[in-house]
């Protein structure tokens, strides 16, 4: 088994998210045959509970659901149903999280079975935690649907685990949608749109609130069971490559191809299949890093350039302009404007 999963690798259990979405659509009066059109998912296989799906099938299903389901709340409703959901092994483990920090750690072990579309990285700065989200597998047009689902699932899962609402702050890169009421209903009112990067922020102290129902013994059991039975990959394809880029800023396509034991040509082809290229991914990663250092940590140009291993400041300024379309000082200014009004 490979360590990572590409768009067309069949590894994730159908009865979890696909079944939830199909049930949800059926409750909204959507014809099942139309919903499954083009997805190569067969309802009969799904009832057996043995079939495995690949991410591209799921994305196609999401596209169909988005088109056929009335209303704008499909993604949010799906998110609310993901956890505890029907896929018992992964949910059983998560239900035994000791606290939120533990929950994030356990989630990274089972996320490919629960929701393999988003890559999350947790950073801490001063009193805040920052959860940065990225496309793990090449979601294309469904990325916003995926994001909405993930955010709704995060809010409802934390509420279930901790027995209380956590005040999450959401920064979305897309503009304020017309169906803002669904965001408010499902995610709360701490929302900002048209932001430089996708980020969820919350107070650090919530990481250590204990989950009331958690049991050490059951957690240990669930972990053991998972280790014994699981051969599923742990990471998405784009996630693996991002990881390489983060670890070594100056890495190149050849090195990554060698690390993944494929030829550079194959790597190029696979990246194209996931709707991106090496250059684009590299720029995305660096853009996110620079914006984080600039907006969140509030560093000046010299420090950011030093942290990102640039030789001189003009070089950094030029690169920053290429990634974001504006110079660092312009970006600082626009962030302040947003902060005052929001």
């Amino acid at each position, binding site marked *: 088994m490979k360590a990572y999963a590409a768009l067309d690798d069949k590894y994730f259990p159908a009865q979890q998210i696909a079944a939830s979405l199909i049930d*949800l659509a059926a409750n*909204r009066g959507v014809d099942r045959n139309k919903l499954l059109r083009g997805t190569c998912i067969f309802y009969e296989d799904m009832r057996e509970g043995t079939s495995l799906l690949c991410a591209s099938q799921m994305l196609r299903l999401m596209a169909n659901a988005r088109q056929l389901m009335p209303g704008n*709340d499909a993604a949010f409703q799906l998110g609310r149903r993901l956890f505890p959901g029907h896929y018992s092994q992964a949910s059983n483990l998560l239900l035994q999280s000791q606290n939120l920090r533990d929950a994030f750690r356990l989630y990274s072990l089972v996320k490919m079975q629960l929701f393999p579309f988003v890559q999350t990285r947790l950073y801490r700065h001063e009193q805040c935690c920052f959860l940065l989200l990225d496309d793990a597998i090449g979601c294309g047009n469904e990325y916003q649907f995926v994001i909405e689902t993930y955010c709704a699932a995060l809010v409802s899962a934390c*509420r279930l685990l901790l027995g209380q609402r956590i005040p999450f702050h959401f920064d979305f890169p897309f503009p304020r949608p017309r169906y803002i*009421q*669904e965001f*408010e209903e499902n995610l709360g009112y701490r929302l900002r749109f048209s932001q430089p990067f996708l980020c969820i922020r919350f107070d650090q102290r919530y990481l250590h609130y204990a989950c009331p129902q958690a049991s050490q013994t059951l957690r240990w059991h669930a972990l053991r069971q998972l280790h014994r039975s699981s051969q599923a990959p742990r990471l998405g394809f784009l996630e693996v490559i991002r990881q390489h880029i983060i670890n070594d800023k100056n890495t190149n396509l050849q090195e990554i191809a060698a690390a993944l034991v494929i030829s550079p040509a194959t790597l190029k082809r696979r990246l194209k299949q996931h709707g991106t290229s090496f250059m684009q991914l590299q720029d995305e990663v660096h853009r996110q890093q620079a914006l984080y250092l600039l907006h969140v940590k509030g560093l000046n140009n010299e420090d950011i350039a030093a942290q990102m291993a640039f030789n001189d400041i003009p070089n950094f300024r030029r690169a920053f302009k290429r990634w974001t379309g504006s110079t660092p000082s312009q970006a600082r200014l626009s962030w302040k404007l947003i902060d005052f009004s929001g």
Partner: protein
Amino acid sequence: MNYSLLPLHRTRICLVLCIALAAILLSLTQGQLKTWPEISWLDITGEGGVAVLTLVWLFFLFVSRPPGRVTDMLVVGLSCFMFSALLDLLDEFIRQENGHWLSVVESIPAPFGMIMMTWALYQWHQEQLTLNAQLRRREAQSRQHHQVDWVTRLYDADYLRAHLAKQLQVSHSLSVLMLDIDNFDQFNRRYGGQEGDRLLREMSELILMNIRQSDLACRYAGDRFIVLLPDTPRPAAITLAAQIKESIRHFAFKTRENGETVFHTLSSALVSAVNTDQVEPLLQRLNRQLELSRQGS
């Protein structure tokens, strides 16, 4: 498309098919087939188009209307029209002797059917007025079927925003009430989404029963409803909100699984609009107030 009404129209569909068959048999037995050069294809396209379109109209009638007096009249009227149109079309294929009785009578059913359809349309108008009265409190002055929420059959947030914008201009003391079901998440998790949807549907009925004819109830998002109360001063709106909450508190919802009774309470927020209010800030105020009242309780 939804074909669930078709089985209810079995006899009417049979009637239409019999009439069509009768037209074909009549003209076949009363004349001889024309030869190819005698056939005028232009006439056939024109007359055939009329016959086919009548059948299409009949089909839409069957899939969209439940059986009833008005439906019967429309079906009979359209069938008469179709009978004439079919005979007219078959004329192009089959020659009858000059002055044959069939060519004399073939046009008689058409005007008869048209008169019947006209009468049926007048009846339809009456029926629509009755339905409009039934829709009171669900619908304001405009009808936008694409903005109806699938679960509760109330209008959705988009319709609400549009109507609120209108009301803010004309109504003097408009009050806006937001209602939210407490612990709806827990209910959903325990009894499933389908039961959650049913609860929403029944709650919306109950809310409708408790508001006045001039009010409008919409589903805003999730388990959140908004009621527009035009020309309602704040004290009256507070009384009305209390009445709705009281009636929901006594509403004994029975779950499908084992008929267990589940009671619910509502949280509410009330905003009275002032002259300069805009839609979005007003909704934001309403949301904020609801959150405050929830934290307080």
